[in-house]
C-alpha cells in the first residue's frame, strides 16, 4: 500500500480513491475470485431498496461506442436480505467499510433504508441515489428537482449519523443548483454522475434494443460530461465530491481529481474488465511519478487554482 494514494472522505481515510461504482460490482464478493478486493479504496454496493426487486425485463444491456446502456432497474433482494446475506458474504472476503447505495420510490423508503443501514458497522458512507433513470415513479425525478432532493437529504440526515452523500443525476439543466440544494440541506458529500439517459435501436427489427426502450448510458464516452459537471459543482460547494463517469484508467482518475473530485468511482469499466480497479490502483503511483505528483490529495481541484 502506497501512502501517497490515500484520500479522506468526511474523516474516513481511504487507502486510495478508487471505489467500484454501485451496480457494477454486485455486493463485491463476486470480484474476490479475480483479486484481493481489500486493495480497493472502498466498494459502493448495489442499489438497495426497501423491498426485493427483480428490476426491468430483459434485454437490459445495449452496447455503445465506448460505453453501454443498462436498464437493470435496481434488481436487489431488499434491504433486510442485503444486510443479512450480502453484507455477510462480503465481510468474509473484505475487511473495510463500504459506500452503501440506497434507492427509494418515496421519501419514507429512503428513510427506512437509511435507518437500517445506520446500524451496520460495515457502512462508511450512505450513498443516496436520487438519480436512477431506470425506474418509474421516483429515482431520477427526485434528482431533477432541487426541492425534493433537499427534502430527501434532510430526512435521511435526520435518521443517521453516517456521512450522507447524495448521488446526482446528469440529466438536468443545472446540476449546480441541485448540488447547492443538497449541500444546504446537510449533505456531507456528493457523488456524481449517475448515467445519462440513452437509447439504441436494432437496425434489422427497428425496435429498441433495451426492453424498457431507454436506459442509463455510461462508460468512457461520457467522461467529458462528468468532468465538466464535477468542475462546475466543485466551484459551487464546499463538501467533497466523489467523481464518477467514464473512469477506466489511472489517467482518468487524475483528470477527475484535477476537476475537483476527492475520490472516484469506476462503473461500466468493471463490466468489461473485472480487473479494472486493480489495474488503476497499480498504475496510479507509476503515473504520479511521471507527472511529478507527490500525494494524490495535492491535486484535488487543481484546475481551480
Amino acid at each position, binding site marked *: 500500500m502506497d501512502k501517497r494514494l490515500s484520500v479522506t472522505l468526511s474523516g474516513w481515510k481511504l487507502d486510495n480513491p478508487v471505489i467500484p461504482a454501485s451496480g*457494477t460490482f454486485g455486493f463485491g464478493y463476486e470480484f474476490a*475470485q479475480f483479486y484481493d478486493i481489500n486493495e480497493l479504496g472502498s466498494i459502493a454496493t448495489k442499489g438497495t431498496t426497501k423491498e426485493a426487486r*427483480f428490476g426491468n425485463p430483459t434485454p437490459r444491456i445495449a452496447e455503445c461506442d465506448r460505453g453501454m446502456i443498462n436498464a437493470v432497474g435496481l*434488481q436487489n433482494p431488499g434491504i433486510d436480505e442485503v444486510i443479512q446475506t450480502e453484507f455477510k458474504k462480503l465481510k468474509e472476503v473484505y475487511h473495510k467499510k463500504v459506500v452503501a447505495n440506497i434507492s427509494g420510490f418515496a421519501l419514507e423508503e429512503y428513510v427506512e433504508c437509511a435507518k437500517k443501514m445506520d446500524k451496520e458497522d460495515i457502512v462508511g458512507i450512505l450513498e443516496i441515489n436520487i438519480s436512477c433513470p431506470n425506474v418509474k415513479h421516483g429515482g431520477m425525478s427526485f434528482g431533477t428537482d432541487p426541492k425534493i432532493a433537499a427534502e430527501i437529504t434532510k430526512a435521511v440526515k435526520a435518521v443517521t449519523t453516517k456521512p450522507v452523500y447524495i448521488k446526482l443525476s446528469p440529466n438536468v439543466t443545472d446540476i449546480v443548483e441541485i448540488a447547492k440544494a443538497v449541500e444546504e440541506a446537510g449533505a456531507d458529500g456528493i457523488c456524481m454522475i449517475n448515467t445519462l439517459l440513452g437509447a439504441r435501436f436494432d437496425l434489422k427489427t427497428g425496435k429498441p434494443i433495451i426492453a424498457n426502450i431507454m436506459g442509463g448510458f455510461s462508460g468512457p464516452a461520457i467522461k467529458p460530461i462528468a468532468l465538466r459537471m464535477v468542475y462546475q459543482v466543485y466551484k459551487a460547494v464546499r463538501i467533497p465530491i466523489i467523481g464518477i463517469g467514464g473512469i477506466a484508467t489511472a489517467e482518468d482518475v487524475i483528470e477527475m481529481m484535477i476537476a475537483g473530485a476527492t475520490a472516484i468511482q469506476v462503473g461500466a469499466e468493471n463490466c468489461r474488465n473485472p480487473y479494472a480497479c486493480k489495474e488503476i490502483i497499480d498504475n496510479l503511483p507509476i503515473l504520479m511519478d511521471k507527472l511529478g505528483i507527490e500525494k494524490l490529495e495535492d491535486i484535488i481541484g487543481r484546475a481551480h487554482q
Partner: protein
Amino acid sequence: MKSIQTYKILQNEPLTQNVYKMILEGDTSWVTNPGQFINITIDTEYLKRPISLCDYDDSTLTIIYKVVGAGTSWMAKQEVGKEIEVLVGLGNGFTPQQSKHALLVGGGVGVPPLYRLCKDLIEKGVEVEVVLGFNTKSECFYENEFKLLGASVTVCTVDGSYGTKGFVSEVIQGDLKNYPYYSCGPLPMLKAVFDASNTQGQLSFEERMGCGFGACMGCSCKTLTGYKRICVEGPVMKSEEILWTKD
C-alpha cells in the same frame, strides 16, 4: 475459476458461409462442464462477446460462432497465430445425466455446445439421439461430427432443402418424448422442445450481457426457484425451474 487468460488462435476457418470454427490454445483447467462459455475481448468494441465451448482438451478450446455483427466480424478476421484475451470459467454448463437414452436438440449456433455434451454422454454409455435444426442446407454443419461420436443424428431444415423438412420439435415423436433432453438454440425452439417433451431436460439460454460474470445483473431471469443470472446460475436451466406452462 474465472480469470482473464490469453489464448493463441490455432485455427479459424469457415464451416459455412457465416459460421466459423476457432481453436484456441491455452489454459483449459477451468472447464468443469460442457455448455460453459467464454467471453472474448474484441479490440474494436466495448463489451466482450459470449461464446459457448464446443469442445476442449488439455490445451485447446474449440468454439463455433456465427458472424452476425461487429464483434463476430472482427473475430472472423483474426489470423492464426494471433493472441486474444478471453474471460474464462463462465456459466454452469450442462450436467450430463446417467440414463439409458438422451435427446440432444440444437438449432443453428445452439448446436456447438451439444457436441462435447454428446461426447461425454456417450462415454457414460448413454445412447444419444441428436436432432439438429437449420434454416437451409447451406447453413448445416457438424452432422458428421456427431455421427462420428456414435450418436444417431437427424437433421431438419426449415425449407426442406436437406434432411427432414420443418422444425426440430416436429421430429420429437414417440420414444424421443420420454428421453431426458438437452437443448440449445433460439428461444422459440427451446419452448417447442419443452412443449414436445414429456420428461425433464436442461435448456441453455442466451441474453445480452454486461459483464458475463455476475456483477451487473444485466442478464437476469425469473425462475420458479427465484431470480437467476444467465451468466452465473445459467446459461443452462433445468426444465423444472423454468416459468413456462406447456402449450
